[in-house]
């Protein structure tokens, strides 16, 4: 639904490098990719984010040509590529484990694609030097692959593809094997490279931080379908489905019953018996069951009763501190026994919060999200 809206949007004049219509792939009874449609404007960084097994790898392999879709169409620069074998498609792929050819040097790895493309040999050296300079590995041409570090291999794998000027560069979780520090660097580096080459990137990952930091557009994929396509901000602040709400960022989730509605504000009583005020864009008849999502970072902790008027204010007991530097969280319990996770500001006030201490947490109704509980599928907590 949402992705079609986006497709229309993009088709309204922006030239697109890649578009898919109702793409499906089944393995036996199992639908790995189920009628996925989307289009990516030229030069965008597009991420497909989803848990493992959601079909994102299958989707990427269909784009690369290693798997044939059961139905639907793939258009690259407006041309259907369904009957084009992988070696003729104007897309290149950075593999999960990079797949650099270990029997060749860095320069030979890059030259492989140039040779196949029929670029005259005398131009190879210039092109290779230029692309190596762009990925900040000048004079690395003669090195063997096993002499490179993880981050350098990454850059060579990207250079090897980008030297061919593909219409679309596909990236299959290439940062997965790197350690945390390097991964943070490479995120910024990848974004820089994408801007510099002005190539459309399609990046698949299960790591939301990678997707949010780098992407212009993110598609959240679940069970073979796109749940929502949007900018990272849209997905974070305005998730359209419970799955997106729970998959992007952390949330406290409570199932409850609607007691009443006045305007956009509804009153919910959770299963534990906690009364909450929440905002709902949809009509929610009293008595209907809904799930409320409250992000840990929207809640404020205060040692005493907050002075400003808050829609929701609960007196809670500290259970434990989950220390993680700037991302530290506090687990607290209401009198009714509901457990909440709250972001813990690293200010002097809260350093000495002992378990058992009583504090207040408060937040506004419009910072909650709520979705009707679907009769069959409940969103999986992540």
């Amino acid at each position, binding site marked *: 639904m949402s992705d079609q809206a986006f497709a229309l949007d993009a088709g309204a004049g922006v030239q697109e490098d890649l578009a898919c219509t109702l793409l499906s792939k089944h393995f036996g009874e199992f639908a790995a990719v189920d009628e996925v449609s989307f289009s990516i404007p030229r030069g965008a960084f597009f991420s497909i984010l989803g848990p493992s097994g959601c079909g994102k790898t299958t989707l990427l392999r269909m784009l*690369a*040509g*290693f798997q044939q879709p059961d139905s639907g169409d793939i258009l690259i620069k407006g041309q259907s590529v369904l009957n084009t*074998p*992988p*070696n*003729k498609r104007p*897309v*290149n*792929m950075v*593999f*999960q*484990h990079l*797949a*650099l*050819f*270990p*029997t*060749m040097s860095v320069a030979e790895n890059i030259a*492989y*694609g140039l040779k*196949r*493309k029929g670029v005259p040999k005398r131009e190879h050296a210039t092109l290779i030097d230029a692309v190596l300079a762009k990925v900040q590995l000048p004079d690395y041409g003669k090195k063997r692959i096993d002499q490179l570090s993880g981050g350098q291999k990454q850059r060579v794998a990207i250079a*090897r*593809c980008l030297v*061919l000027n593909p219409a679309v560069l596909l990236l299959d979780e290439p940062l997965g094997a790197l350690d945390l520090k390097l991964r943070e660097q490479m995120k910024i580096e990848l974004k820089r490279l994408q801007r510099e080459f002005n190539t459309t990137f399609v990046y698949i990952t299960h790591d939301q931080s990678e997707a949010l930091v780098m992407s212009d557009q993110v598609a959240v994929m679940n069970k073979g379908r796109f749940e929502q396509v949007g900018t990272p901000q849209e997905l974070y602040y305005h998730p359209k489905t419970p799955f997106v709400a729970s998959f992007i960022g952390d949330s406290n989730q409570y199932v409850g019953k609607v007691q009443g509605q006045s305007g956009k504000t509804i009153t919910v009583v959770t299963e534990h018996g906690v009364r909450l005020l929440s905002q709902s864009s949809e009509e929610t008849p009293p008595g209907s069951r809904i799930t409320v999502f409250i992000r840990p970072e929207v809640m404020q902790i205060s040692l005493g009763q907050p002075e400003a008027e808050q829609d929701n204010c609960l007196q809670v007991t500290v259970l434990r501190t989950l220390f993680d530097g700037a991302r530290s969280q506090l687990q607290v319990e209401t009198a009714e026994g509901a457990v909440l996770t709250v972001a813990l500001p690293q200010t002097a006030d809260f350093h000495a919060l002992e378990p058992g201490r009583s504090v207040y947490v408060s937040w506004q109704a419009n910072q909650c999200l709520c979705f009707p509980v679907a009769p069959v599928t409940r969103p999986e907590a992540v």
Partner: protein
Amino acid sequence: MSAEPGSLKRTQYRLGFWLLLAPIVLWLSLLIILPHIDMVLVSLRERVASRQYEFSFSNYTEFFTEPLYWNTFVRTAVMSIVATALTLIIAFPVSFYIAKVLSGKPKMALFILCLIPFWVSELVRTYGWMILLRETGLVSGALQWLGLVDQPVEMLYNDVAIMVGLIYTSMLFMVVPLVTTLDSLDKSLIEAGYDLGGSSWHVMKSIVIPHAMPGIMSGCIVVFMLTLGNYLTPTLLGGKDSLWFTEQIYTQFITRFNWEQGAAFGILLLVLSSLIVWLGLKITKQSFTRVMS
């Protein structure tokens, strides 16, 4: 006091090391090195009278002056090289199919199917080929029955029959190292080869074969040595006049009782095989240790 248990341990460790090494050292020295030293010594003497020997190179000069020996020697080398090359050409697609196309049960099944013929002795397997190829054999009979020929055809006792037998005998020794090296080739490397614009031929040439080179060479070395030193298959399928060098050695040792000449031939065969293997490694730029690991 603290040093003693340490040194005791070290002595024990040394003793264990030598005990474990002993069988292989005994095996090599008693069965390989000692006979070869003796063979070199035997080949370098000439019988001047009964039980009277003199140091001489005559056994080697005999080899180089007698065209029959010389020709047989070259013929055996060339046939062995051809047999090795053909075995490689046939075994490579088979191994690639087993290692990279199949997976799970069919893969194991096909691999075992390659292995099953080797549960039967070489003699019986060669006899199988004789049943097929001889004048009164199955192939000849089938051709007559189809009316393609009007009299029995003899397909044994020629070079093609020898070649068929040699390739058949060597197959497994090529398939096993090839499957092992191809198994270790990451499938995504092949996909990357296609993704970057390579055709099947390019992917094969620039990615699969360079990766499989150690396996190819170790398979070739084993097959070449087995073929060069094969006695049974050339004799049975090629007949008495198949001119295989091992037959010459056999004749010298057993029929003519000329151990001196036989030993010289044996040494020459060893030198030949070492030389060709060394050349092969040089040409393909592989190191012996890497190929054999």
